[in-house]
């Protein structure tokens, strides 16, 4: 009998201890569930940081827009998908385009999750509340930035501003460009309100030590949001508002032009987050997994003679004096005056044969482990946008602002005098092309000026007929979401 009892006891013991083993705790595995994560201040801090990598991912590849424009070209041969980008014949099935779309919407999803959950978190002290406001402002800025990129590249796009949790909600139609612009404006106005002018946040009642104090370079500031807002107004043709927003950036006194042009770019001896920097995508060493850029392998000259992978010679400044680019017109390198110091910082040449250009601002010989930042906005850009907004309104200050950028020791050029009207407009446009060459500005500028069709025609790389420069909506997305219509021309 004793043995029966023993047997039953053993069995009973096993059953009792067992339900636990099939209900493990997520926390034990070093992971955390979403609900638990967004329940306290640390969740706000780290959730905010978790949004930023979407900026990094976006700007690791934004150079493809230069390849679309008349500023960049790719090596001949090799990859069809990239050749398609260069000749403005992008296939809706292109993985490149899908990647741009997916990266932006992933960033939007993260900001939506953050913005949806963070306001409800309670139990914060005064400082933490101030920091929460700042972080919300950063998230709004980043959401606006992603939408601004998407709407300019693709036209009408689905506008989503809340966290989608139900997978049945994923069929969403395109929202008109105008509505998307309105949302961006709304986000930015709120962001400007919440973001500090400088870091650490001057509103803090007591200083916070360390990372949480917000002294980190690379966070979005009020100036970043104002720049983006000005850029938005410039794009929508609201020149007075654009001027106002951009003038506030200038007036803030936070930003100055670097004494040396090269200072904004580490690849040519500059530094991260220089005085001119308004917003940069931050890259880092292999100590931070996934935080490196691939500019090295993408832009490199390809003069390594091995039958394996090497530099891909993509996105090189256009130069029609080179043999294989001889059919191109209005090429970037030829647009520079020889006296312009910026030319040598923008383009270099390999020593082999055939000679090819190299995107000097961003090329470092580090393969896919580049650590140099991508400059999203810098002060020179603000000044030129300001000039553009002023010129459009007939404001004479336009020329002054143009000359602030153009004529100083860092360019080696003299000031322009006595021009106005279309001549001034064209001078500002040329200055943008040169000052911001190979910084993923050109294609957006052409779209904004509505000159993309003629400029690319003149460059001998006409845009896809009927597309007006818009990219195709990725076919893969359309297959998953039947409500998505395709752009004209595709």
């Amino acid at each position, binding site marked *: 009998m004793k043995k029966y009892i023993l047997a039953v006891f053993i069995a009973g013991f*096993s059953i009792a201890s067992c339900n636990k083993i099939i209900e493990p705790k997520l926390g034990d595995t070093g992971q955390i569930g979403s609900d638990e994560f967004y329940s306290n201040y640390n969740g706000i801090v780290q959730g905010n940081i978790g949004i930023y990598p979407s900026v990094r991912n976006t700007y690791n590849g934004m150079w493809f827009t230069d390849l679309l424009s008349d500023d960049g070209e790719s090596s001949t041969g090799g990859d069809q998908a990239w050749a398609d980008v260069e000749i403005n014949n992008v296939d809706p099935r292109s993985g490149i385009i899908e990647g741009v*779309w997916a990266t932006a919407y992933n960033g939007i999803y993260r900001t939506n999750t953050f913005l949806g959950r963070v306001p409800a978190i309670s139990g914060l002290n005064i400082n933490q509340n101030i920091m929460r406001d700042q972080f919300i402002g950063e998230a709004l800025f980043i959401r606006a930035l992603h939408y601004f990129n998407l709407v300019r590249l693709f036209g009408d796009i689905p506008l989503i501003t809340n966290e989608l949790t139900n997978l049945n909600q994923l069929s969403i139609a395109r929202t008109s460009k105008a509505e998307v612009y309105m949302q961006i404006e709304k986000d930015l106005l709120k962001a400007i309100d919440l973001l500090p002018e400088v870091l650490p946040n001057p509103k803090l009642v007591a200083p916070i030590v360390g990372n949480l104090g917000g002294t980190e370079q690379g966070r979005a500031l009020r100036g970043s949001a104002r720049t983006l807002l000005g850029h938005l107004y410039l794009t929508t043709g609201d020149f007075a508002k654009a001027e106002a927003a951009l003038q506030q950036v200038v007036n803030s006194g936070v930003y100055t032009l670097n004494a040396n042009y090269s200072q904004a770019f580490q690849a040519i001896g500059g530094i991260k987050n220089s005085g001119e920097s308004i917003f940069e995508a931050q890259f880092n060493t292999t100590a931070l997994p996934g935080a490196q850029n691939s500019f090295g392998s993408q832009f490199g000259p390809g003069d390594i003679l091995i039958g394996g992978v090497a530099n891909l010679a993509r996105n090189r400044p256009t130069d029609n004096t080179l043999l294989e680019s001889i059919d191109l017109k209005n090429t970037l390198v030829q647009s520079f005056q020889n006296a312009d110091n910026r030319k040598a910082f923008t383009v270099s040449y390999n020593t082999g044969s055939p000679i090819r250009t190299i995107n000097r601002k961003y090329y470092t010989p580090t393969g896919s482990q580049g650590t140099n930042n991508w400059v999203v906005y810098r002060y020179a850009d603000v000044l030129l946008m300001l000039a553009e907004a002023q010129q459009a309104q007939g404001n004479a200050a336009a020329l002054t602002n143009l000359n602030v950028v153009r004529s100083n020791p860092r360019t080696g050029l003299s000031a322009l005098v006595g021009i106005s009207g279309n001549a001034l407009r064209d001078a500002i446009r040329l200055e943008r092309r040169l000052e911001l060459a190979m910084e993923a500005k050109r294609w957006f500028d052409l779209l904004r000026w509505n000159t993309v069709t003629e400029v690319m025609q003149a460059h001998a790389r006409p845009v896809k007929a009927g597309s007006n420069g818009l990219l195709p909506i990725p076919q893969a997305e359309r297959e998953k979401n039947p409500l998505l219509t395709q752009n004209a021309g595709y």
Partner: protein
Amino acid sequence: MPNFKKKILKGIFTSFFVIVLLFLNMKSSNAQVKTYTGTVVDETGIPMSGVTVKEKNGKMQTVTNKMGQFSIQTLEKTILLFSFTGYNALETLAGISPMSIDLKPIVSSLDDVVVVGYGTQKKRNTTGSIATVKSDQIRQVPITSPEQALQGRSTGVMVMQSNGAPGGASQVQVRGVNSTNAGRNDPLYVIDGIPLFDVLNTNTASGGGASTPSANTGSPLATLNSNDIESMEVLKDASATAIYGSRAANGVVVITTKTGKVGKTKIRLDYYYGVQSIRKKLDMVNATEGMLIRRDALLNTVSDGGFYGRPLLTQAFNPFTMNSSPEYKNIDWQNELFRAAPIQDANISLSGGTDKLRYLISTNFFKQDGIFRNTDFQRISTRVNLDGIISSKLKYGLRFNYSNQTGNNVEDANPFQGNVALALQTEAWNQVFNADGTYWGPTNPVPGNGNLTLWNNRNPVAEADLNIRPTIRNRTNANLFAEYEIIKGLKFKSSFGVDFNSINNRRVQAAFARGPYLIISGPDIPNNTTKVFSYLGNTSNWISEHTLQYNKSFSNHNIDVLLGFSAQQNVTRTLFGLGDGGISPSLTLLGANIAQNLLTSESYGEIGLVSQFIRANYNFKGKYLFSGTVRRDGSSNFGPDNKYGSFPAASIGWRLSDERFMKNVKFIQDIKIRASHGIVGNQNIGSFAFLPRMGASNYSFGNTIVNGFAPNALANRGLRWEENHKTDLAIEFSLFNGKLNGTVEYYRNRSKGLLVPIQVSNFSGFSSITTNFGSIENKGWEFSLNGEIFKSNTFSWNASINLTTVQNTVLDLGTTASGGVQEFFGNALFQHGNIPVNITRAGLPIGSFLGWRSLGVFQSQAETVGYPTRGGILAMPGDAKFADLDKNGVIDDRDREIMGSPFPNFFGGITNDFRFKDFSLNIFANFVMGNEVYNAGRAQTEQFLNGSGTIQNLNFWTPGSNINNPRLTAGAQSAYNRLPSQRFVEDGSFLRIRNITLAYQVPQKYLSKIKFESMRFFVSGSNLFTFTKYQGWDPEVSSNGADVLSGGIDLIGYPVAKTFQFGFNIGF
């Protein structure tokens, strides 16, 4: 350890010596009457009562008592005869008391006892599909890991030893591939009742180049000493496997180790020594030919107008102009990298026992040097198996095993790091050593171009010697059980087992000039600095099981019911670190010396299973057989909605031969028809896939790294196990007095609810979500036949053959929202500009090959004019011509077609056993027919810039030659010419003489004089002959291992060796 090895060797030599002495001292003596005592036991070691013991040529006779003991008075040198109904009579010389006699049952194969889940069963009464491989078959071929012994031995089991590295993992597929998910197609291994969780084969370290070298951990069974194995049973159909429920979708391999038998201590020594060497070398181009190939490829490319825009320095055309003293040797890198390598296995076991306690203790030393330079594997293990009886009702036992495994491996299958692949890709003009004996290295950058090297001047010997990947693994298993017979026929059994496993896996990329200054992504950029990966992992696994079994026969009804409860938990912890920056080659430990880019990550995972199961077998007169099984598993891998799953199976059997109307058919001894159907599962889907989780999403502000989090998985609360519906129909027969036995079997497995990523819009934050959607079918026939072809007193010949057909078809992988069929591609192939070759698509076998249809080469300029191009690359005469299948005017991805699949039409094995007097000859062959292999390695050497490859590369197109191999080019043109096409798809069929063993069994008459029980000497050869059309090293290849979506690709992996060995088995 070397001391230990010495001791073992010393022991072996000592015993040799003793044997010789005994032979020399053989003397005759006068016959006297003596009393001989002993014990008779059956095949399981249980004492047998009632066995008749008599003098063969005399009148003395006795019977064994309840304890199996006997005592008989007889003359010395008398032969005793032991007999018992149903058992083979045994004759033996009366020897030293107490004698220990094993009687073996008379075996028609259908009377065998087979191990099933949670017990044993008479084979004649089984209604499930079970294949058995016995210890002598397991030990025949030199193997590092027991699963390799299954190759060619049983129907339905496909074993591909696709990685010939010592300790390398084999792919074991029982009746096809049931899941599209990598690593989920292995059978469940059960060792002495303990089901093993996948142990540290899949590691989860965080990204950023922190991927761990999983291939190095090798086979999950490599810690097991194959000498210890009594039998391996492969459970294949639902009826046999359902008792393992949610883990049985891929079949179950039940491994049973040997146990002691009542009687005096028996000592067994088993030893072999072998020499392995590369099975086949390829004929490579020599340095001069290679240079010409390279020069012409470059010239052609330049005249075409470019080479990825790279400069072509004049030196590039002749590498020797780069060296001031071009004293070079023409190197065949296969000779430098491969070697004749020893393999040896020494095993000693002691077994015996009394009726109260039986024991088996064994120790094994196994060492295999790899045929590739600087690779090896070593295992030292000890086993203690005890079986005791406390009272007639209470029994207990212990299975204990400790194993220590160490070794070193190479990177393979990776085109950048793969040392093995370099044997066929390194230029013949590269050197091994400098004149001063140091390693030759890439010392010749072009002046003024620091980053420029002119050819792929790596030194694979230096890399093999200096880059090391050592592994140390320790594993301890113990299982303690007790069985109590409550009333007659009703037994309660409890067992508790543990399995501890720890592994330290390191990878050191030494600081030396290691090759071209490749600027590539990934972890191996640094040149001249040491990079170290270190991985520590341990698992602890416990299991507690309790069964109640009732066994009863009344009149003609036989009932056997099993009721069980099981709980098992497996906890895995890992710690992983990597760093680089060390510059002294002797400093290879992570820490301050190697502190650049230091990265660590830690992981913890647990899997728990709580299960109940029931099995009922019933038969009427042994003629009508029924069996039903249900297992209910609760698994930690599933969310609250799907925590529990039930897995039922039922089977029936009909022994036709017992029917009256069959009695008159004299040549038939036994015919049984059986059928089964059931559902089993695959719960190996990873933990917490049902929860929405946050994952690290770090950023840096300025240069300061900051930790962030972002959602990293979409929740799918409804996630559940993959289901496998198995149907089986078979006929088993035994004819001509048991001289011919066989089975014909049909099976069909349908996997349903496979975990497949379903595409969702990126608005969700992700591009796909894992759901239970896919469906795969595997079906086929299995034939096995074994028979006695000839038998006389002096000569016998037995033969067996088995053959399995597999038809693998993906039925459904889900659709995209627009109704398109979802497809999965395999790994992108570097050799083809990162174009994948495998495709998994509904209606086709998993991982079928996809590529362009080759129409030969353009023979003339005229032919190229207006012909569709790819990516705007203009073709020249001599370039490959591909078909524009969709006629859209360009050669694009939509022009690809299916080019075959890695699945064979059938596979199997053939065994022939010859016995002549005391000699035996065994010839064992296995074959695989109808599969294709994609020779990506050949595609790689055809890029011509390395000036290497096989002499096939000399057979290129030149104007007017009409040869259909493309001309010599490099760069983009070469990439175009090498697009995946039928040209690289080869017939992977082979027939391999896996083993030939010639053995001599020293006859009893000599042995008894020297008081030895048995002595056998053998010589054998493995993999000596392989008949195949495959052009690479070996058709048995799958460089992507268990990744079935990328199967059948030859990236020039570690080839399987051929081995000559000799050895002996001695018992005393």
